[in-house]
């Protein structure tokens, strides 16, 4: 049980700076997901918390104690690796008891804790197997079980589900969610998969090039992205961005248009938008609907029918592309002309540079 404070955390390899001043507060018992494209530094940040990477500057506090220079074992963290990192020469039982063996726990204590962890993960019947006799999902359970037996104050997950197939990934995602509500321990979870981020997190940290883009609850990030990057990163298919001309700004509202968009009034949400300049209008594909009186006009270039949803690629009159997702099975012909409508409250207006 511990809270974490990351203050101005930096990491550089020689002259290359990979983490550029990260400030995050993590409350006790919170499930925090670090998400971002590959190379954004999310795994490095996790490894810095685990103590596997040195901290170049800044402060890392776990449970109110500065642990910048503490050994991994002194930080009270347990880590689950993407590759499982199970010891292949030990049985599942020995694997799960490894941390306790190192700590010099008694046999009875080991037995009891391994049994407890196995019960939580429903893998009592696997305890005497070798890792090579397990499937991918079972191996990942062992890796998680090994973390549980140590009873850490912080769990660290480094893309734990990346190696699993789609169906198993969904199961394990739910298991991890259940595990968190059961153990009520602080968990930090790194992933590039936004579905995992959206479903698991109490708090999402979006990272890009070693910098925090936005921190907030999943829905906060989805509905009120702070910048173009977050807006484009979360949501599938990703948000449409239209280059628009700002015609007029009235307080918190701006009137924008472009050759394929009839003038429309949207909120500026306090962002620096100036009349006479260009801006970027973001509209989620799900917020578009077909309407005779729509403001957007274009032709269908591709239609994908998924049953529950139809995703259409459109080429707008000014040549830009647009993706629309209709929550119904809709028959669209290639070349068909559509007029689309959207709720101006659901649109986001960003300055051109983000």
């Amino acid at each position, binding site marked *: 049980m511990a809270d974490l404070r990351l203050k101005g955390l930096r990491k550089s390899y020689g002259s290359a700076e990979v983490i550029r001043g990260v400030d995050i507060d993590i409350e006790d018992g919170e499930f925090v997901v670090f998400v971002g494209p590959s190379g954004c530094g999310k795994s490095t940040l996790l490894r810095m918390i685990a103590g596997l990477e040195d901290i170049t500057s800044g402060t890392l506090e776990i449970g109110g104690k500065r642990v910048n220079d503490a050994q*991994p074992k002194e930080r009270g963290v347990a880590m689950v690796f993407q590759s499982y*990192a199970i010891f292949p020469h030990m049985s599942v039982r020995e694997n799960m008891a490894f941390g306790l063996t*190192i700590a010099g726990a008694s046999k009875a204590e080991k037995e009891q804790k391994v049994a407890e962890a196995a019960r939580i993960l429903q893998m009592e019947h696997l305890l005497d197997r070798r890792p090579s006799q397990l499937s991918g999902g079972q191996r990942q359970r062992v890796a998680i079980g090994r973390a549980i037996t140590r009873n850490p104050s912080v769990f660290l997950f480094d893309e734990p589900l990346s190696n699993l197939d789609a169906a198993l990934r969904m199961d394990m995602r739910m298991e991890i969610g259940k595990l968190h509500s059961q153990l009520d321990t602080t968990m930090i979870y790194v992933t590039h998969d936004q579905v995992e981020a959206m479903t698991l997190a109490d708090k999402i940290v979006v990272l890009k090039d070693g910098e925090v883009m936005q921190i907030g609850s999943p829905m906060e990030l989805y509905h009120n992205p702070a910048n173009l990057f977050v807006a484009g990163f979360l949501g599938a298919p990703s948000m449409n961005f239209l280059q628009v001309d700002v015609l007029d700004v009235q307080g918190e509202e701006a009137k924008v248009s472009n050759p394929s968009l009839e003038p429309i009034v949207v909120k500026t949400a306090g962002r620096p938008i100036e009349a006479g300049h260009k801006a970027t209008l973001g509209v989620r594909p799900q917020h578009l609907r077909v309407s005779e009186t729509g403001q957007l006009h274009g032709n269908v270039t591709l239609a994908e029918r998924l049953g529950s949803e139809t995703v259409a690629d459109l080429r707008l009159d000014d040549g830009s592309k647009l993706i629309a997702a209709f929550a119904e099975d809709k028959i669209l012909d290639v070349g068909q002309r559509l007029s689309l409508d959207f709720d101006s409250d659901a649109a986001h207006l960003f300055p051109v540079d983000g």
Partner: protein
Amino acid sequence: MDNIAGTKSTLTWAVHISVLALVLLWLFPTMGLFVSSFRTGDQITQSGWWKAMFPAELTEQFRAADPDENRIETEAGVFVVEGDFRQEGLGGEISTWGTSSRDLAAYAPGDTADLGEGETFTVNADGTYVWQGNADQIEGRGQRVFITALEPPEFTLANYDQVLLDPRNSEGMAKAFFNTLTVVIPATIIPILVAAFAAYALAWMDFPGRALLIAAVVGLLVVPLQLALIPLLKLHNEIGIGKGYLGVWLAHTGFGMPLAIYLLRNYMVGLPRDIIENAKVDGATDFQIFTKIILPLSFPALASFAIFQFLWTWNDLLVALVFLIDSSGETTVMTKQIVELLGTRGGDWEILATSAFVSIAVPLVVFFAMQRFLVRGLLAGSVK
């Protein structure tokens, strides 16, 4: 590689043929030594080891019994000597016989040879013979007879008895065998123990100068050991080790160390980083990681180096000659013993073959016992 279209069949054949050639190249001499070590010297000179499983035509020289003692006068002036060559060591089925070395196959069994002036000699198929003539003819030395017989295949353990068990035999291999073991076992274990620690440090611990140390190890790989023989011996003499087992252990350890460190480091560096980091997060110290994780996982590499070092020290002559064997001959090793035998018993192929086979038997056993560790991948299942 397997699924590249079109290249499979020819490549597979080339591989199979090369493997077959290598196997035969290795198998024939080994089998030859093995078979020869169970044959007598006579058999070895008569026929090749590949005929050992078949009956062999063997021509042996016999003499009839001493006429002065054994002749019987059956009627006036006619003397007869009778006997049985079977009792004198004739074995197998007699195919031909003769009385002159110029014509060994003159007669068939049961024929009577006319030796001139009424003297006759008869050899029957059952090995009995009758030599008949007058008093002047049946006297002096017994008649020479060359008998060619088809001997059944015969194998003997006498060679091993002589080479290994004869307590009076100073040329035996028994003592040399145990001396070799005394040299080899510590000379295999010590370098592995030391090198495993060094390899772990060079692979997974960060310290200044690590890259230089690794470069030095690689450099030492190519230094011929002959360079160090004399200086090392001088050193041993000066610090009081002199010639003896301790000296040869240290020498083998030193000479094997660069390869050991190099091999083990390369193997350990290939172990998944995640496993080691996981152990670190779980609170293991470097020493615990080494003993609980690295050593068990490095077993294939340890075994393969152990085989290398074992074979090289087992077959070594040079290092043993320089650092171990003194004038007393008490500490002679098998390689040295075989060299001696080549000098003193150069013609006795059965002894040489047996000694040679004794010296290769242990490496064979070691190889076949350990080879599965070379093949088995212990890492299966650790990471995806």
